[in-house]
Each structure stands twice: as structure tokens, then as C-alpha cells.
């Protein structure tokens, strides 16, 4: 069920990253029922986990969002006031000019709610990055009149839109993301299609993100993509390019749900049993740097939410040095099992 407030606003214990990390290291892991992630990857020769070639620079423009989804690992919502300032954006722009990463990935919260979002997209697009992604929750496009022209704006800057849609049916989507979210998402997808997204005559890319609406893992990404394509086309005449199947990581509000519904242990067992060494080889922290709203650097968006800053002399965008960062060791904990289960999971979907 969708929530009304973030963990942070509810002053829930799990709003503190140290409490989440402690929870993930105690219980079944401390008692030896399941192996710590570090020991598991050591057994398959993957410890320490080191970065490979940097491919993706992911910037979190703020935790403010118009939705309060029950699975959100960011604990985002309208009550979150953490927003990237123009000054930090300017520091990011300096990095974007020189980075070897081929993909720039803007996320949030709802990144469009940052008051300097449009200025930033315009400036960042000048750097000529090959793949410029904005992660849009879709409903923001209809949330307020000032956002209605976002499809045109995205088109103008050739933005690659990656949108969340938990399922192609209304009930499951609304249960996870809030009442009315499905209908608004469908309308927003139709608006994106109307300006040329995912249409054969343009190169404007529109990908969808699926994440399970509950305590289970995603199935085969290709099979799901086919189901989504058939259902969305038949029911709503919607086209999209690719579907990314993403596993819910046991942190933040999804961790709260797992604990409250007494699914935590089963879920961790399922993740550990599905551990795939081939997924570890391509896990996203090995090709990504994640930048928080206040400019700190992390191995991934999940580590950002757990406040596990990069293990490097360089920890802030103002001191950014790609070569130094590439020598770091990636910080891990038990939540990492979420990215190594089955076909693996990343912001770009399956990895193995």
C-alpha cells in the first residue's frame, strides 16, 4: 500500500542509515544462517570488489518527489527538502565536461522538481554526452501545469527517458505507488509517444522500469518486456523501447515493508540462494559513480541512501578525480545481494 509520509517524516528508526546497516548485519547473518556478502563474494573470487571502466555518472538532484511509493529506496516524497543547489550543479557540470563516462543519468526523487532542473539539462547537454538519461516517475508530467510541456522539453534536448511502471495493470501499480498513479502514468506515456518517443521515425528513447510489487524477485526481463509490450499496446496503444527489470533492495521503505510483513528472512534467503557470480562481474557499482544532492560521491544510489561514501581520498564532487576514484575498493553490505541475484539487477536492468 502506498504511504503518506517518508520514514524521515515519520521519524522511523529505519530513516537512519546506521540502523538499516545494523539490521542487515544482525539476525540471520550474525547467527550464521546466511553468509555475509563479503564472505560470499570472496568464495567466488570477487573480493575485494573493484571498479572497472567508468561508464555512468549518476546524479541525484534531490529527494523531493510528488509520490510516496511504498518500495522507495530513496525514502523520497513531498516532505523531503534535500535538493541539489545550483552551486553543486555547477561543480557537476565541470565534471561532466571532462568525464570519460558515456552516460549521464539524472535521478531523484523527481529530478524535474529541482527548480534548476531545466537550466541544468540545457547546460549538461552541451557537453555532448552520448546517452543523457532522465529518470522520470511519469506522474510528474501531469502533477502541475508547469510540467505539462516536459515531453517537448525532453525531446528538445534528446533526453533518454527512463520511467517507472511497476506493472501493466492498474491495481498493482496503484497499490505500490498510490491511487491514480497508473492512469496518470498511462496518460504521460501517451504524451511521450505523441512527441515521438519510442516511435520508429525518431531516435528518442523511452525505456520502462519494472520492479516487483512485493517480496519476490523479478523474473526473466525479456519475458516481462514481451508481456508489457503486448498489454500496453493492446490496452492503451503505448510503445516503449526496453524494459529494465530491477530487484528491490532490502533498504529504506522496502526494508520496512519486509520487516512489517514478516517477509524479511524469506526474502534474504531468496536473494542469497539466487546469488550469481556472473552478475557480480557486471554489477553496476563497477561502472558507475553516484553523486548525491549535496555533492558527495558513492559507489551506487543504494550506498548513497545508506550514507556509505566512496572509500577514496576523493569523496566530494568539488575534488573529483576519476583516476583516483577508479582505484577505490567498493563498499559492500548485505543489501548488495539484491544486485547479484539471478540475472543481476542495476539501474539498467539485468546484467548477466
Amino acid at each position: 500500500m502506498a504511504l503518506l509520509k517518508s520514514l524521515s517524516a515519520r521519524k522511523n528508526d529505519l530513516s537512519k542509515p546506521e540502523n538499516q546497516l545494523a539490521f542487515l548485519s544482525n539476525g540471520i547473518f550474525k547467527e550464521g544462517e546466511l553468509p555475509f556478502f563479503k564472505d560470499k563474494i570472496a568464495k567466488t573470487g570477487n573480493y575485494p570488489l573493484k571498479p572497472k571502466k567508468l561508464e555512468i555518472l549518476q546524479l541525484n538532484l534531490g529527494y523531493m518527489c510528488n509520490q510516496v511509493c511504498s518500495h522507495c529506496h530513496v525514502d523520497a516524497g513531498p516532505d523531503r527538502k534535500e535538493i541539489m543547489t545550483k552551486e553543486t550543479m555547477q561543480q557537476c557540470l565541470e565534471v561532466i565536461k571532462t568525464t570519460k563516462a558515456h552516460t549521464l543519468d539524472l535521478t531523484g526523487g523527481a529530478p524535474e522538481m529541482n527548480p534548476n532542473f531545466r537550466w541544468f539539462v540545457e547546460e549538461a547537454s552541451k557537453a555532448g554526452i552520448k546517452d543523457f538519461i532522465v529518470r522520470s516517475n511519469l506522474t510528474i508530467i501531469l502533477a502541475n501545469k508547469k510540467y505539462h510541456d516536459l515531453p517537448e522539453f525532453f525531446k528538445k534536448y534528446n533526453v533518454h527517458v527512463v520511467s517507472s511502471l511497476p506493472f501493466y495493470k492498474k491495481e498493482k501499480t496503484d497499490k505500490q505507488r498510490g491511487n491514480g498513479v497508473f492512469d496518470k502514468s498511462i496518460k504521460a506515456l501517451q504524451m511521450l509517444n505523441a512527441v515521438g518517443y519510442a516511435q520508429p521515425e525518431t531516435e528518442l528513447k523511452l525505456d520502462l522500469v519494472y520492479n516487483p510489487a512485493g517480496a519476490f524477485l523479478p523474473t526473466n526481463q525479456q519475458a516481462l518486456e514481451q508481456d508489457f509490450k503486448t498489454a500496453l499496446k493492446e490496452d492503451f496503444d503505448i510503445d516503449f523501447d526496453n524494459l529494465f527489470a530491477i530487484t528491490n533492495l532490502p533498504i529504506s521503505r522496502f526494508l520496512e515493508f519486509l520487516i512489517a510483513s514478516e517477509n524479511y528472512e524469506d526474502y534474504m534467503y531468496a536473494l542469497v540462494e539466487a546469488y550469481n557470480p556472473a552478475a557480480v562481474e557486471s554489477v553496476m557499482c563497477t561502472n558507475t559513480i553516484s553523486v548525491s544532492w549535496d555533492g558527495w560521491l558513492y559507489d551506487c544510489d543504494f550506498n548513497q541512501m545508506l550514507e556509505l561514501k566512496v572509500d577514496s581520498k576523493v569523496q566530494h564532487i568539488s575534488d573529483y578525480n576519476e583516476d583516483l576514484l577508479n582505484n577505490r575498493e567498493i563498499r559492500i553490505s548485505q543489501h548488495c545481494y539484491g544486485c547479484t541475484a539471478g540475472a543481476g539487477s542495476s539501474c539498467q536492468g539485468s546484467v548477466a
Partner: protein
Amino acid sequence: MAKTYYNPDDLRKFGEITEWSEELGNKFFDYYGKVFEEGALSAREKSLIALAVSHVVKCPYCIDAYTKDGLQRGITKEEMMEAVHAGAAIESGATLVHGVQMMNKYDKLSM
């Protein structure tokens, strides 16, 4: 010892049956895995059949496992419930068709 015959945690230990009979256990799990691969029937269709049979044989472990499997595959709750009805219809039909046996016997015994 547990005070109930069924413990949900035991499902996780299913694989341990091989410890007391390795060859037979491994042969079973190889067979089981092969059965549920994509074939003339899709893995999705087989998942629904498994869910229906789980109810007919009244196996709580199987019901848990194939409800979760169905969710993972994007099978809707309407599809799941229809599968359960298909199983239930066969099961109740199997009872009712014996009514013919009863009728035959009744007629034979009656003057």
C-alpha cells in the same frame, strides 16, 4: 520437535532430502528442473498447472512456492484463481463421476 506437522521454514530445506539418498534426490531435482523449463508448454503455463495441482494435492509448501513463482512471472491473481478452479473442478468431478458407480450398484442391487 516442532508441535505442528508443517513448518514454512522447511520449504527452504527441501534440497536437503538428497543428504539421505543422494542419487535418488539428485535424479528427482534434475527431473524437476527439466520439467519446468520452456518446452512445448511455456514455463508460465507450467507454473499455473503446478499451482492448480498444488491445491488438488493440498501441499502448503507447493502453494507458497507457486504463488510466489506466479507473482514473479507477472501472472495475475485472476489467472491464479482460475487455475485453482480448474483443479477444483477436476477434483470435484472426480468425486461426482463416482456417482455413476453408485447409481450402477444401486440399480443392480434393486429389484
